[in-house]
Structures are given as structure tokens and as C-alpha cells.
């Protein structure tokens, strides 16, 4: 590994005019970033963690489903996001016993960059979605939905299920909901996390719209949705479907 030396000479003039001045000045800085690679460890920390880790492992190591492919967090569209948005839509319909036009997941709310093919444990779902976010429904007027979609576009595209759109000049274009063009004068049943519906990630346009909230955690919904594949004897597979694309 190399160590870099950064040398700087700070200008000194300004400090001479104050009465009480520091005795020393910074003259150089060397820097180094250590990779924490576990070649050596302090085992007293392993011992300290053991009781916590044992308990975490007991409740988190059970396998919920098997992932057939590596999936990743990506903009404007990624496989991890598609899976999570699909789970939001399917489970919102189940929990609220109604049809849902579209579901969203805020991009920043996905907390793993990648999930490798293989077993998905409960713990992995907690890392994917550590927040105690609740799935809520809102009846959103088409005009407000367009505003929200523009916001999603301006943030580079969020995972969505039930909608396809293109991003052009930070706006949503060619929006199709259930295959039909967005109608500004109708309302749509939209699933979101309570975080987003309450204005999180600057989604201010949603704040004033009433919510249906029965307390169902999004994370529990993910676990149940993933388990449904296992129960059907299937592995989970996800593809990019051009739900959200950047206009050329």
C-alpha cells in the first residue's frame, strides 16, 4: 500500500491581527485509508459481540427463499428495486384487499447495493429494508401523481411496479399505468411506504393526501412475498423490464 503525502502551506497573515492566537499552525498532512480486511482482529470484541450475534443469528439465519440470479440496486431501474416494488404492489393488494394501480420504493430506502444469487435469509431482508416502514395506500389525483413522477424522475428514477415511464429533462414522460396513458383528471390507488407518503425524500406533494394505514411493515411484506415463491416450489428470478428508462 502506498502512503500519500499532501503538503500544504496555510497563509498566516490573517491570524496576526487577533490578540489571542493559537501557538501552532498546521503545515502538512499525510493521509492513508486502511481497508478493514480482518487479517488481524482483537478477539475481545468478538467475545463482546458473541451474545448479541448469537441472538441475531438465531432469529435471522432462517432461509426464506432462493434467488436464482444476482440482483442489484441501480438507476434508473434495477433488479433489486423491481423485486421490492413488485412485493409492495402485490402485498398492498393483499393487506388492503383492493386493487392497486402502482407501487413505489424510494431509491435511498434500499440499503444493500447487491444481493447475490442463493439463499435469502431473514437477516438479508433486514439489511435490504432495515427501516420499520409501513405500506400505506393513497388515492392520488392524476395531476399530483404526475408531480410525484416528475420528482421520481428528477431523482434519477425510483423502483416502481405498475407504471412504465421515461425520464427526459428531469421529468416523467410517456407514462403508462396498467398500459394506459396517465390521465390527469382521474385518481389512482398508489402504494408507498409511510416514509414517502409523509413527505420523505422531499415528496412534499404527497403529504396532504389521506392515507390508508393498517400498520403492515414493508419488511414483513417482503418476507411474505419472497416466501410465496418458496411455497410455490420456485426460485426468485428478476429481470429489467424497461419500467423506467432515460429518454435518448
Amino acid at each position, binding site marked *: 500500500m502506498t*502512503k*500519500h*503525502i499532501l503538503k500544504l502551506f496555510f497563509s498566516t497573515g490573517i491570524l496576526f491581527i487577533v490578540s489571542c492566537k*493559537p501557538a*501552532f499552525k*498546521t503545515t*502538512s498532512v499525510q493521509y492513508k485509508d486502511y481497508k*478493514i480486511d480482518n487479517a488481524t482482529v482483537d478477539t*475481545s470484541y468478538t467475545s463482546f459481540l458473541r451474545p448479541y450475534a448469537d441472538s441475531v443469528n438465531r432469529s435471522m439465519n432462517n432461509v426464506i427463499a432462493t434467488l436464482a440470479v444476482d440482483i442489484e440496486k441501480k438507476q434508473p431501474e434495477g433488479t433489486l428495486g423491481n423485486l421490492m416494488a413488485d412485493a409492495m404492489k402485490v402485498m398492498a393488494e393483499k393487506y388492503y384487499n383492493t386493487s392497486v394501480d402502482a407501487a413505489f420504493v424510494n431509491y435511498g430506502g434500499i440499503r444493500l447495493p447487491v444481493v447475490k444469487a442463493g439463499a435469502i435469509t431473514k437477516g438479508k431482508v433486514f439489511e435490504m429494508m432495515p427501516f420499520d416502514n409501513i405500506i400505506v395506500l393513497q388515492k392520488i389525483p392524476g395531476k399530483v401523481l404526475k408531480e410525484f413522477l416528475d420528482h421520481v424522475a428528477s431523482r434519477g428514477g425510483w423502483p416502481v411496479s405498475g407504471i412504465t415511464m421515461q425520464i427526459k429533462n428531469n421529468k416523467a414522460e410517456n407514462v403508462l399505468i396498467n398500459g394506459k396513458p396517465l390521465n390527469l383528471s382521474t385518481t389512482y390507488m398508489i402504494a408507498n411506504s409511510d416514509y414517502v407518503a409523509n413527505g420523505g425524500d422531499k415528496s412534499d406533494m404527497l403529504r396532504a393526501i389521506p392515507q390508508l394505514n393498517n400498520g403492515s411493515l414493508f419488511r414483513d411484506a417482503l418476507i411474505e412475498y419472497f416466501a410465496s415463491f418458496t411455497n410455490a416450489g420456485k426460485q426468485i428470478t428478476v429481470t429489467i423490464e424497461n419500467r423506467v428508462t432515460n429518454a435518448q
Partner: protein
Amino acid sequence: MLNRRKFIQQSAFTAGALLASNWSMAEDAAVQKLVILHTNDVHSRLEPFPMDGSRNQGLGGVAARAKLIEEIRAAEEQVLLLDAGDIFQGTPFFNLYKGEPEIKAMSMMGYDACTMGNHDFDGGLENFATQLNHANFPVLLCNYDFSNTPMEHKTVPYKIFKKGKLKIGVTGLGIEMKGLVPDNLFGNTIYLDPIQKLNETASILKKEKACDMVICLSHLGYQYKEDANKLSDILLAKESEYVDLIIGGHTHTFLDEPVLVKNRLGNDVVINQVGWAGLQLGRLDFEFSKEKRKKISGAKTISVGKKSL
């Protein structure tokens, strides 16, 4: 601000000379040295990432970080260990234990101070206050007013560390909660203007308290390319006075090298950030010399060199 390309180009011409001057200075008895170790956005990553074939497998965790810190402390006289916030949230440890092992481990490692990140609100203010009972280090914040919240009197705006002959002032800045942290989690917390509060605090530290160096632990984020006006460490550094170093967080930025920005007074501010999840430990070795070392006005030479370890 000096952009990085220019910064490195300059270095090619001057690295040799500067290395030589660096060595001669190290022999000067008036030169003081301080090693700053830092983390940010560790996000409850107490254990290394699992061996599942992913990019970060086997990396991180407190046991390896602690070992490294111990080795550095054994070799260096004056060390400060700092964290720039988002200690909480990201692994099931936090869901089950609400931050207790995170804070306990930081106390064991001898962290000198931290600031608060937006995810440190995630268990609620009452929970953060409760977990701080396990902390033997202060939470530094100069721009949150916690009056009438469970966090009242649980943070301090700054702390001054005596390190050999040096006086080091450290403060902290939190990010705006509205639209980021759910309203119910930050409650009555009032967000105050970071630039104004930082300059007030840094001025106290440099001028009244005569600190030789002022460090800001910032959870504002390094830079926002999509929203150039959003306050970030880069913008903060430009608008700052009397701050020498910003240890950043929030944007999970891995910088190849610390970045230098000119502040309002034309002086250099160093910014560094080390990604997230405790994958890295940042180390900055500062050298200090007596104030009498006077440079010709306006002459600021900044360059980069490399040497093998």
C-alpha cells in the same frame, strides 16, 4: 477550490522537494504531530460483511478496526478517533438491540467524539438518548437545538482536546431533518443554519480558546451533483472561517484522497470521508509548527507526492 487534476499535476514537479522539506521539519523540535483516525456511516456494521461472494465480503467489523486502532495508538503519541454520524441502522443488530452494541463498541475502542447522523434518529430521540448512557465520548453538534426533546443536554457544541502541546477544537454539524427524517422521529428538534453556527463556533475555538486546529464532524454530505445549491461539505468549506478540517459523512463517499478547498479567508480546508459500513478507517497525520513560520503573503503551495510504506 483546486480541482484534483491540477492538484496532482502540480505534484509531479514538486513532490521530491517537498518530501525533503518534510523530513527536515520532522527533525525540528518545534514540530508537533497529531494523528486523526476517522469513520463515518458505519450503519451498525459490527461484524464483517458475510462471505457471500459480494464485493465487500470479509470487510469491516469492530474486531479488526479495534485491532488497527490499537496498533496505531501504540505507535503514535497523539491520536484522535472521530466519527461523523450514522452509527445506527443497517444490520439486524440495530433492529434487535437499538444501538446498544454499536455505542458500547465505540466506547471500548476509545472514540474521542462523534456527531449525529440522520439515521441516528431512527430509533427515536429517546432511544438515542438512552443508548448514549453507554457512551464515554461526547456527541458534538452546534446546529441542532434539542430544547424540549429527550436529547436536551445530551450533546455539546464543541470539545477541546489537549494533545501534547496542541489544543484541538472539535465541533459537529447535523443535516436538515425535514423531508429526510420522518417528522415524528425528530419531534421538536430545531435545525439551525450550519454555516452560521459553524463559523460562530469555529471563531470561538480559534480566537477565544486559541485552538491550534478546528475540526468539524459533518453529516451534511460531501457534494450533491444533482442539486449544486444543496449545502454540502464542499460548499460549507468555501463559506467557512477558521475550520481546518471537515470529517464528512452521509453521502457514503469514498474519496481517493482528501480534498482541499479555500475558505472565505483564503485558507485551506481539508475534507475527507471514508465511504460507509466501516469498510475503511481514515487516517490523517497533521504536522504543526510554531506560528512564527511566516509565509510570503498569498503564497500557497499545495502538492501531492507518494512514497511507499
